[in-house]
């Protein structure tokens, strides 16, 4: 078992109904939770960029990226390891 790391998976794909389902399916099939997701248009007409942050093992992310690239609508997919940002909220009560 490898240690899980956080990855940003970027996909460029032809934007059409069902695209997001197909991409989400690749992650959910392997039991990977999507931590964040962003979809936006690109300068290329009809091509969308989808950025997904997930936590998984290095060997799995390689396979997931290949399986995303295999989807007919996808032009390119790649992943980058991301530092894990921990955020916390501090609540202070100040007496003035």
């Amino acid at each position, binding site marked *: 078992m490898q240690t899980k790391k956080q990855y940003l998976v970027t996909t460029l*794909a*032809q934007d059409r*109904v*069902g695209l997001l*389902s*197909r991409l989400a*399916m690749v992650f959910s*099939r392997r039991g990977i939770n999507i931590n964040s997701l962003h979809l936006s248009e690109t300068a290329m007409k009809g091509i969308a960029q989808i950025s997904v942050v997930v936590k998984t093992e290095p060997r799995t992310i*390689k*396979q997931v990226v*290949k*399986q995303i*690239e*295999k989807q*007919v*609508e*996808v*032009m390119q997919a790649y992943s980058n390891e991301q530092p894990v940002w921990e955020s916390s909220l501090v609540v202070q009560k100040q007496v003035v």
Partner: protein
Amino acid sequence: MTDCSKKLEDRILAGDDINGGEAVLLSFMEEGVETMFGYPGGAIMPLYDSLHQSEDCFRHILTRHEQGAIHAAQGYARVTGRTGVCLATSGPGATNILTGIADAFLDSTPMVCITGQVVDNLVGTDAFQETDILTISMAVTKWNARVSKAEDLPAVMAKAFYIANAGRPGPVLIDITKNVFAEKLKFRYAKCHSLQTYMPIVQPDIEQVIKAADWINTAKRPMVLFGQGIILSKSSEELRQFVERTGVPAAATLLGLSALPDDHPLFMGMLGMHGNYAANLKTGDADLVLAIGMRFDDRVTGEVSTYLKQARIIHVDIDPTELDKNMETELEIQADAKEFLKSLIPLVRENKHEEWVNSFQELATQEQNAVINDDLHPVSGRITMGEAINEVGKIVNPDTIVITDVGQHQMKVARYFPFKTARTLVTSGGLGTMGFGLPAAMGAQLGHPDRTVVAFIGDGGMQMTMQELVTIAHEKLPVKIFVLNNGFLGMVRQWQELFFDGRYASTTLPGPDFVKLAEACGMNGMRITERESLADQMKEAISFDGPLLVDVVVEKEENVFPMVPPGAAVTDMILSGK
């Protein structure tokens, strides 16, 4: 365009608009579709109406269940290499073809499935017979799409046929809302030859081929493991040339069987759970493995962490997701198997590897003595499955097409049928779909009307899709159906015997009188119970003119050996259950 489409062509030339249903049929004509399988229903009725008016253009086979239609289309596609076409209506029609679609997805079969859908303005409202088949089928299709405007039809159809066949073949589903079939459009069809977002790599990287050749040339104990990729890429001849030049012994996956003739001196048999003893054990001695058009399925590798540990592995596949998926390999080459072998052959040196090749023989002899002799030449008890299969194998032509269902008989066919010609085995490999055999045999016979088609089916699988006997009889398809009848779900029973202390939970299977069933469905039936008459009755069956069901009453509790026990390494394969 074909002659039969002249009426439609004349209308197009006269500037007349045609309707969506006609456009689907014209698209089929453009793609060379002649045979299709299906079942009508509410949402797809207008397409059937168009089909009725062009009935001299196509042979449409009305099966008795949509599952029969999809498996028949698979059988047709598997033996011809052409796209299998299946039509079904919305809702239950669409969900009934899912098993076949999943089967085609795992076994890389090119298919275009058309489903009718409720009219566009009712989609999403839980209308009568509405299912969201696009979402449901997403995980088991190479591509799917909905057409809700007739003008989109030609481009989507062209794309569907291209995607089904390009790279690693697979099933495509096109869901067409009912309104589309009636809408008018100007029909212009342009075949699709490439897509901006989908460009499978066919040619291998020559540097990688040089490296592979170098490894092969210097290996002491090389082995080729090949799969269906050889058959799909039509490279049986190149594979034969390669092994004969290099003297490298070869073994096949289940779906790779028939790519090399069974009696080729360098063909060592089948890999995997019920494969051949030498083929499996020798993978543990090989120093180099060239794996072509196969995917290291768990039934092939056994416990994968123990597989090929001592060998350098070259893995060639057209689908990049298969590379480094189940096995980490040293050299991954994304290419079409034929193109790879054509590049490789001039770079490899002639060799014999005599000692290494001969070392397979000792293990083959052990298997012969411990398993094969008893399977094929038993002296007591009822007829064995192996005996029946062997008897058929002895008398049929070398180009006979063999269909199996799933289970013990399937493994026995894989082990004992003498395949001589490529693309002569049709079996459900990846999904292991019981009920596949009978309809697939129907499709195979329609794909090759002049060749003998024999189907070996267990009594369990037979009872899953036996309504298709009616279709086979009605269409007068001369399929020879051998029900290897042991009254059990044999493979599950074998596992219960070996791994569940003999507790036969729900595996005893009383069946119908198959001979009477055949007759009730409109075909002849015959029963074989005695070893003494087996050879003569098999000859009679094979030479029978027309569809025939043969109920072969076989040994009830026969097992398939050798076997790699679940969780074991293939090198720990056992020759018996004792």
